[in-house]
């Protein structure tokens, strides 16, 4: 019984925490890249945000670190593949890779793009705020990104260059081509 109660509480906490994160997102500001909890094996990234109305956004990119013994350390993401693992991390602090860059869109459709370089393996967070003319934050979205070392990129699957299974018709076609040519 206690186990069931604990599981229900844990699920509720996770649901509520994610709902808090997403309740105030602007439907007209869409983070195209990176994907939420996506993984890249690179030291650079293209941030792309689509804005569907004239408005002002502020974009910041942080590395999430954990405080251990009073020191902020990069999170070891090599063994973390689950979104749940990341959501359960505690004692986090955000170190800006770049902080609160303002982009003003005057069109019905525009894109904020920025190439971020020199990022090291770890957990990152892209924060996009929609602000009014006075700078007050109206909406916020947070997108998490896992950066792993290039050497950890999965190798091509063994099946990549296995000969495709030919249909009977293809086998017959190949047979006649071999005899009569094209």
């Amino acid at each position, binding site marked *: 019984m206690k186990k069931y109660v604990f599981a229900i509480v844990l699920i509720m906490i996770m649901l509520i925490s994610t709902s808090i994160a997403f309740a105030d997102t602007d439907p007209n500001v*869409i983070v*195209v*890249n990176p994907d939420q909890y996506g993984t*890249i*094996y*690179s030291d*650079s*990234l*293209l941030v*792309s945000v*689509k804005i*569907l109305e004239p408005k002002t956004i502020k974009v910041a990119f942080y590395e999430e670190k954990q405080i251990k013994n009073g020191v902020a350390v990069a999170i070891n993401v090599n063994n973390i593949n689950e979104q749940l693992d990341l959501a359960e991390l505690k004692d986090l602090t955000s170190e800006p890779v770049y902080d609160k860059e303002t982009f003003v869109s005057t*069109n*019905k*459709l*525009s*894109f904020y*793009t920025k*190439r971020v370089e020199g990022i090291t393996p770890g957990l990152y967070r892209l924060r996009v705020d929609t602000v009014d003319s006075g700078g007050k934050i109206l909406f916020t979205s947070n997108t998490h990104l896992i950066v792993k070392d*290039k050497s950890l*990129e999965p*190798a*091509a699957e063994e099946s*990549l*260059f296995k*000969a*495709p299974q030919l249909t009977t018709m293809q086998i017959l076609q190949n047979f006649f081509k071999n005899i009569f040519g094209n």
Partner: protein
Amino acid sequence: MTRPIQIERVKTIFIVVLFLMTILLLYFSWKDSFLVGIKIPIDFLSQEETIPLPFSEDLIKPNEIMVNFGSDAHTIVARKDYKYWDAFVLSVSEFLNRENLTITEITKNQFDEATGYRSIFAKFDYDLPFKDTLAQLDIQANANNIPIEMFTGIAYSTAIQDSIIIYDGKNQKYYRLVSDYDLTALNTIIDDIENNSFDPYFPMRVFLGLDNSTLMPISVKTEMKEIAYGKEINYYETEKIVKLAQTFFGEGFDFVRKITESSGTTIYMYGYGQKILILNKDGAIEYKEELGEASYSALSYFDSLNLAVNFIGTHGSWESLNGTKLTPYLKDAEPIIIDNKSGYRFIFGVIINDHPLYLDGGKQTLSVEVIGNRIANYKRQMLDISQNTLDSLTNEPLRQTMDPINILTDNHMEMKTVLNAAGIIIPGTTETDFFENTSVLIDEIKMGYVKTDEMDGIQTGKVYPAWIFRVGDIYMYFDIFSGKLLSNPNQGPGGV
């Protein structure tokens, strides 16, 4: 009959015979020659000068070398860095020479998956005959059976480090070649490019969230600027025109008719149109020759190319007539048939300080149609640009260009109008629909110079730095700094 009368009759007969022999001699010397294409021009070049001709190997370079660094980060190698292509070819030639080379056909999906990893893909805008190309490059491929007909691209992927992939664009086939040669030198090429400064490109789907893998650069800095040009030949430069015309008609030039039209076009015609040279008022030159009933013998691709290269070298040269040196390259090549005789059309472009030059209206700088061992058609529109201007470009300060993504957002309705006019209907009801449905059609985004005949109704006499967006054969040019549409679009192979 008295003796003086006999002597006069002999003299008369002798003169008649001489006259007939003269006519016969003239007939044989003016008869169609197989050597028109490579006749050395009279008085056009100093006898001491050698004719500068580009080597086929220098003309035939990939139109694009795409490098994938992984995680969607790419670059397109600039022409000034084509030393990497030379190193790539060196490794591939050793790879192909191994005794245990095997060749198997693979699918496009397999090719796409392989090149989704760290990889290099060098692509041409035309198809080359595979075996002839190897022979031309003096590369021996040790395979019992080579099923590859044409060569349009070549790729190496770190996902399959024992392999090279050949792409046959004509037949839409992909081939995996495997040997025991160590290709890790190609990993080094990718690493080297990545470690040096490069312009980053990403697939459009990363920018837009749409299904299009065309590479798009983030904004770049460039030294490009507006450049004034002149015509290499003007209709009033009589002496220059005559000298040029003589290169086409040789010793028969004295018997060529000259027609000057009210538009300013000058036409030189030999016989009843067997050979025609047209000098347009805008500086464009065209030469046409009837193939007639002269014996025909087909030439190979590279023999045809060499004939075309020689012909250009001896008829106007590879520089402008005023000496401007622009770097030529083979832009397009395709087989053609004229009067049931087969041959090739070669289109050559020129590079201005590492960037291709485009002429709007579908025009080309140099175009040659080779049928057998004859030149059937030659078109030329070389621009005359001050050598000082060209030399100074490398010292120009770098300026930030407009982001191509913003050119797309600012001009997608103009693009829609252009594409609709060309018969490509963009579906949708909202502006967002039109943007997305236009964006998914973009096949290529490049930087280059564009020569427009006029802007806002005014002859500009300039070439402009531009972002070029291509959808199929439709090219749209936008000012690289302001994003303004530069000219009406054209259909057909763009670039010169």
